[in-house]
């Protein structure tokens, strides 16, 4: 496969870093090469946070997103900040509850935050719901590999909840009106 650059960006506490790591692990399980990088502020919660994942069939040169193919924006700030870095033909997944101004032609709106809240009662699985959306929407990794990577990465006591979050994310896409 050709190089794909994915940026997952939002606020600290949404599980953005963990989601990126899971996506990269799923890519490796799918037989691709992958890199993951995390950028966060000094705060543990509430500050801006982002994960870059690069997936490719062969060796990866620059390990960060440089020309973003797919942006998952989980805050207004993230959408505004990274919109200029999206490559021509790139796509954006947003939740309009977090980024109401995101209505570009290349943008698809999914209720990631409400779904995460419904599954977990909070925002911790937001990133995993977003991964479910991403996989159903854009492919990039095997669905089974993604499930395996989620199960392997999250704490055992939260495994069932996270797998439910992944399934609910996928259903946001399959149930979406085209």
């Amino acid at each position: 496969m050709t190089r794909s650059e994915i940026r997952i960006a939002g606020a600290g506490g949404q599980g953005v870093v963990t989601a990126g790591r899971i996506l990269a692990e799923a890519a490796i399980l799918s037989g691709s090469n992958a890199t993951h990088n995390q950028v966060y502020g000094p705060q543990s919660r509430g500050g801006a946070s982002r994960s870059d994942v690069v997936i490719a069939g062969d060796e990866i040169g620059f390990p960060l997103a440089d020309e973003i193919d797919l942006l998952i924006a989980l805050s207004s700030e993230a959408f505004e900040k990274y919109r200029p870095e999206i490559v021509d033909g790139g796509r954006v997944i947003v939740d309009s509850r977090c980024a109401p101004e995101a209505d570009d032609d290349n943008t698809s709106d999914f209720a990631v935050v409400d779904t995460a809240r419904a599954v977990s009662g909070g925002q911790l699985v937001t990133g995993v719901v977003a991964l479910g959306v991403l996989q159903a929407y854009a492919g990039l990794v095997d669905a089974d590999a993604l499930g395996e990577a989620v199960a392997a990465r999250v704490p055992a006591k939260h495994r069932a909840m996270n797998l439910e979050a992944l399934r609910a994310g996928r259903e946001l896409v399959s149930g979406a009106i085209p």
Partner: protein
Amino acid sequence: MSEAQLIQGNEACARGALAAGCNFYGGYPITPSSEIAEHMVRMLPDAGGVFVQMEDEIASLAAVIGASLAGSKAMTATSGPGFSLMQEHIGFAVMAEVPCVVVNVMRGGPSTGLPTSPSQGDVMQARWGTHGDHPAIVLAPSSVGEVFDLTVRAFNLAERFRTPVILLYDEVIGHTRESVQLPEKVEIVDRVRPDGDAADFLPKAADATGVPPLPAFGDGYRFHVTGLSHDERGFPTDDGHVAGALLDRIHTKVSDYEDEITAAETFMLDDAEVALFAYGIVGRSAREAVLRSRDAGIKAGLIRPTTLWPFPSQQVAAAAAQVDKVIVAEMNLGQMIGEVERATAGQAEVVGHMRADGEPITPSELVGVVSAGGGGGH
């Protein structure tokens, strides 16, 4: 080789240290190096080693030096603010000739700066941070796999030359996870220990290599350790001839083997008209930029040093002889560019592209720099 795993740069450093035989870690965690301490504290006790969290970075390197003199392979890891505190003891380790490894995962400075953002602002501090004339061996990896390899190399060089070795990489390299296959077995160098009569032992007498054998405390050889200028017995002296000879030996034991120490990767330089000089994460950006520039019809190439010090002057001079222009790209306001100019010696035009705002220099940015003919920065 092991199976491909998604490993973070800082974890690769810890694993490289263990593979090299590290059995002592003394440190004080600091972003963006903390994962090295986290992995060491998990892995080192099971490997029969000792992990000590010290009260600060001064004490951390003191503990490392003590452990090394007791026969351990010892390391610490830090970032800019802690690296500043360690300078005193780096000089002590140079003077007392104590093998040890100091890792500095660079973040934005000066002072506490940008704790979670990358920088390459410490490359001159790594050379000249401690006072007095001293040799420096500083390695600079560009990938997670190279962090592992160069951590092993850092220990081997420290042991071989009885000197501190600094492993220097930026936050991006430290925090990036990449799919890597780590080697099952690595080549290990151990310090030379004395085998003669303990009664005649001169702890600072060296053979032709310039490196005196180093016993561990407890081996039965008595020796004195000091940061003062000292004679072959290890005791302080203010005799200028003796002090000068010591300083000379401490330098030449490294400089005589510079050809074996310095290393730089070159990429597509053969027919290049413009060469990028970049290290660390910027080396990755530059490699991409070379490929993209060539797609656009510009004959670009890359020289990427993996040893910053001793500086690979010969490799840079050879590259400069082939091209019209050298573009030095670094995440600081211009540090290694002075060395590049010195090594280039007028053979090619040298221009810089500098960035010190906490963001890495990207391939797109460098493609623009190359097509514009170089120069500029933020």
